[in-house]
């Protein structure tokens, strides 16, 4: 769904953020490793003794240095790498002790390590890494980290906190009168920014209901944008001696420009990227590059116009996800996901780590009153904000947020990276900058540690409504689609519109215009078909994954289709048959549809991280159930389309297929006419492991291939995933059996496997239906 890409880009952004942090702070730092005093060590010949008069200055004669060291040359990248490695090691370390990570969010741990390192550095009087300049921050770091609650909540918080703090400042006893309203507002905007990382990790572990997750997540994403806007506004304003009403109005206007502009740019770049990927079928290796570059470009361009770059990136990601996923190959998809997760992981690690280090090594200005009140107000206003906003919005929602959800949201307001970075980039003109920095750090540490650690037990305690992972089965999809169509129809009948109408309209527009332009094979896809294909592909991949461990070898649907059109060579057809066999086996054996995983996934797992065993086990039980003696009807299996051979239906090979599989192909796919042919049982990995599965009798007559010449009957269904309906639709539908016919057929089948199946036992009871290739029955 939609959440994944947002999340992934969020992480990616955070990654870039970190990397640039380092770029910046290493400009002026000495880092961990003190530079060597002598840049070069060369082997020099002994000098002549000084007391000899020199007739002429002798040129120093030096030999060719055999061994030299030039540290400054590599200093910067070297130190960056070391930092990253160190933080990553810390991360490995945490996971060794699983118990820790269950209760303590990673961010806490990372900060702690950072604190330790910082302490070490401090004690050896190393300078802390130089702080980021705002330029660097915004250009490199900020983005990535990346909607009702976000905007309003942040506004509410900022203004609320700002004003309260200002009131406090008036109290003389605290000694902070010099902070005026603008500066307070500025500071407030900094600390309103909520950071999702810790919270979402906990939510995920506790599997709170999706609504809550989405809201918190969305809030964190979008409120980054809001915060930055506010920050800019307020810092601009803080410099001004007088604030006029027109400025406030302009501020609001600017806010909308920034927000909507960001979305617009994002969508624009998303479309451009989608359009580009339409033509990348020949250059699949660089597809990920396009994705990343366009996203980054979206970010930079929006920075150019000083509009919300985070929104730009998020919208870009959303748009791309929908269209690009159909255009790029599976491998590219996997690559992108991997890279994004990796970058995200690194950046998140580094930022918290860095936080810890800096905490120790900066100069702090401490003012008890201000800081404590900051903490207090931050909580109070957040709680109030959530309450008020929920009250306003609940009547419009089908599923309203109850108090527990609200508590989760309020308590989940952890501050983190954004606040941290923003605090550091406060202009120096603000008198009390150090105080602000200190207060920010305090609040971050407080929320991360205290709230971070306690939120999990609390959530479990108050028993926030858990998610029911939606089983998006084909069933549900079909019925929901039916309902949508019905509703649209009824509305038309009644002559009125509502959101179904618009959704319908948009889908029509999408199918007619957008998809045509942006997607390579632009057949308008019903969502049912799309889901079906996806599920099939997923299942296929999962099978193959157990079997061959090479899930990334599966090409995307599109690329398969493409290949099919290109290939004319016989060799490729063998691959196709191979693949088809697998598909057949899959579909023949009535796998239950794997429940689609919920939108969000674990931090460390790619989406579609499969647990093949579960599938196989389910498969067993479902097979068992269905194969009741005599009830052939209940045996659900799918046959190939009648008429054409498999290769007409199934896309040919994957180029990336492991070499071992190639042997399969070369062998034994005999005459063209025996389509399904006798797949040779080779040593290929794909088939072997399947033998391990012990099961039931496979009905020998399950016959996949139909020979048109022989008039064999094809059973029921057809397909597995990747084939599109192409024009060569097998004609003879009449040859399709109703299950009842199949029953009779079963009775008359002698089972003698074709001779090519050397490896197979000759009896008619296949041990492993899962593995067993459909027997081609020559008689049919």
């Amino acid at each position: 769904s939609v959440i994944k890409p947002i999340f992934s880009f969020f992480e990616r952004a955070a990654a870039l953020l970190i990397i640039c942090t380092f770029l910046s702070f290493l400009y002026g730092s000495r880092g961990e490793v003190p530079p060597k005093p002598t840049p070069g060590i060369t082997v020099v010949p002994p000098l002549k003794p000084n007391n000899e008069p020199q007739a002429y200055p002798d040129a120093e004669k030096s030999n060719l240095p055999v061994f030299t060291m030039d540290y400054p040359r590599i200093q910067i990248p070297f130190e960056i790498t070391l930092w990253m490695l160190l933080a990553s090691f810390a991360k490995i370390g945490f996971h060794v002790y699983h118990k820790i990570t269950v209760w303590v969010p990673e961010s806490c741990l990372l900060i702690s390590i950072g604190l330790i390192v910082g302490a070490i550095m401090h004690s050896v009087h190393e300078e802390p890494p130089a702080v980021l300049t705002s330029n660097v921050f915004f250009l490199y770091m900020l983005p990535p980290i990346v909607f009702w609650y976000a905007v309003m909540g942040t506004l509410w918080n900022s203004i609320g906190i700002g004003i309260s703090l200002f009131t406090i400042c008036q109290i003389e006893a605290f000694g902070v009168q010099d902070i005026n309203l603008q500066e307070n507002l500025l500071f407030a905007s900094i600390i309103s920014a909520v950071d999702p990382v810790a919270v979402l990790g906990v939510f995920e572990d506790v599997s709170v209901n999706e609504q809550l997750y989405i809201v918190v997540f969305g809030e964190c994403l979008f409120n980054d944008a809001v915060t930055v806007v506010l920050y800019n506004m307020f810092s601009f304003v803080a410099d001004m001696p007088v604030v006029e009403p027109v400025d406030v109005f302009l501020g609001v206007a600017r806010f909308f420009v920034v927000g909507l502009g960001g979305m617009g740019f994002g969508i624009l770049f998303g479309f451009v990227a989608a359009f580009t990927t339409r033509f990348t079928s020949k250059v699949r290796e660089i597809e990920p590059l396009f994705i990343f570059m366009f996203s980054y470009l979206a970010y930079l361009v929006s920075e150019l116009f000083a509009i919300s770059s985070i929104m730009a990136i998020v919208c870009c990601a959303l748009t791309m996800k929908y269209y690009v996923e159909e255009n790029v190959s599976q491998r590219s998809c996997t690559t992108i996901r991997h890279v994004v997760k990796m970058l995200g992981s690194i950046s998140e690690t580094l930022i918290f780590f860095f936080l810890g280090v800096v905490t120790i090594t900066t100069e702090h200005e401490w003012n008890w009153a201000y800081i404590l009140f900051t903490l207090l107000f931050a909580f109070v206003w957040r709680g109030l904000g959530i309450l008020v906003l929920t009250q306003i919005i609940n009547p419009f929602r089908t599923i309203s947020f109850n108090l527990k959800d609200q508590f989760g949201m309020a308590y989940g307001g952890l501050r983190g990276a954004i606040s941290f970075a923003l605090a550091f980039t406060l202009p120096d003109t603000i008198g009390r900058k150090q105080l602000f920095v200190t207060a920010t750090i305090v609040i971050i540490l407080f929320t991360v540690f205290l709230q971070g650690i306690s939120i999990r037990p609390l959530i479990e305690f108050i028993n926030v409504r858990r998610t029911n992972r939606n089983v998006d089965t084909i069933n549900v999809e079909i019925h929901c689609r039916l309902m949508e169509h019905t509703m649209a129809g009824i509305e038309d009948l009644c002559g009125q519109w509502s959101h179904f109408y618009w959704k319908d309209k948009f889908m029509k527009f999408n199918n007619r215009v957008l998809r045509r332009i942006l997607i390579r094979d632009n057949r308008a896809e019903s969502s049912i078909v799309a889901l079906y294909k996806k599920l099939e592909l997923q299942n296929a991949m999962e099978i193959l994954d157990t079997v061959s461990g090479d899930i990334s070898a599966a090409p995307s649907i599109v690329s398969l289709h493409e290949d099919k059109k290109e290939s004319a060579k016989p060799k490729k057809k063998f691959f196709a048959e191979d693949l088809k066999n697998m598909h057949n086996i899959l579909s023949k054996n009535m796998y239950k549809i794997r429940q689609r995983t919920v939108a969000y996934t674990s931090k460390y797992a790619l989406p579609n991280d499969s647990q093949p065993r579960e599938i196989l086990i389910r498969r067993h039980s479902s097979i068992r159930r269905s194969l009741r003696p005599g009830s052939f009807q209940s045996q659900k299996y799918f046959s190939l389309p009648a008429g054409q051979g498999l290769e007409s239906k199934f896309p040919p090979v994957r180029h990336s297929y492991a070499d071992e599989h190639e042997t399969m192909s070369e062998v034994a796919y005999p005459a063209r006419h025996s389509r399904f042919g006798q797949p040779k049982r080779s040593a290929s990995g794909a088939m072997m492991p399947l033998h391990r599965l012990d099961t039931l009798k496979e009905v020998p007559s399950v016959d996949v291939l139909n020979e048109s010449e022989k008039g064999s009957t094809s059973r029921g269904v057809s397909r597995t995933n990747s084939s599109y309906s192409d024009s060569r639709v097998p004609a003879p539908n009449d040859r399709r059996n109703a299950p009842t016919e199949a029953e009779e057929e079963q009775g008359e089948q002698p089972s003698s496997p074709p001779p090519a199946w050397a490896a197979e036992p000759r009896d008619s009871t296949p041990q492993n239906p899962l593995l067993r290739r459909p027997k081609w029955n020559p008689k049919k």
Partner: protein
Amino acid sequence: MGSSSSNLNTIPNSQELMQETGFSAAHLLRLYERFEFLDKDNKGHLRPEDFEAVQELSTNPIGDIIIGSFFSPGQETVDFPSFVRILAHFRPAEKNRTRDGAQPEPANSSTGKLKFAFQLYDRDRDGKISREELLQVLRAMLEMQVTEEQLESMAERAIQEADLDEDDAISFDEFKKSLEKVNIDHKMSIHFMK
């Protein structure tokens, strides 16, 4: 549209209808106007052709299925009360309604809506969605996009998923169960305009 001079009195049995379906007077009036609008020849009832005259409905993939649902089996016409009764299914369900056990399930409750959806599939009204019926609907919804085989696979799978008692058909309870996680009320409600 429709004669603005019609008021509640011109609608026969309006009180009973309101009672039965839960529509307010204003809603009922508006629906009556719509009914009259559709009934171009002023016959007093609607025929399938009148429905098909609605432009968008004819382009709706399951348009004829929807139209068919208005007509009870064997009937060729729809009068106003039947029209309203069918539409009553799509009213948003009232929450916290106290119902005594004697009252029949209101048409616009989740179950009522589900029943309506079920009947869209189950044309022969035998209480089960057979594979053929499912296929028909699927075919209608997917039109040209897939091959017959793919359709059959999908129907196959759908039945597998839902069919708990393994009679190769989906009964109403199985149907209901498979949709238990879906917010039916949300999905199948129209806020009728006044």
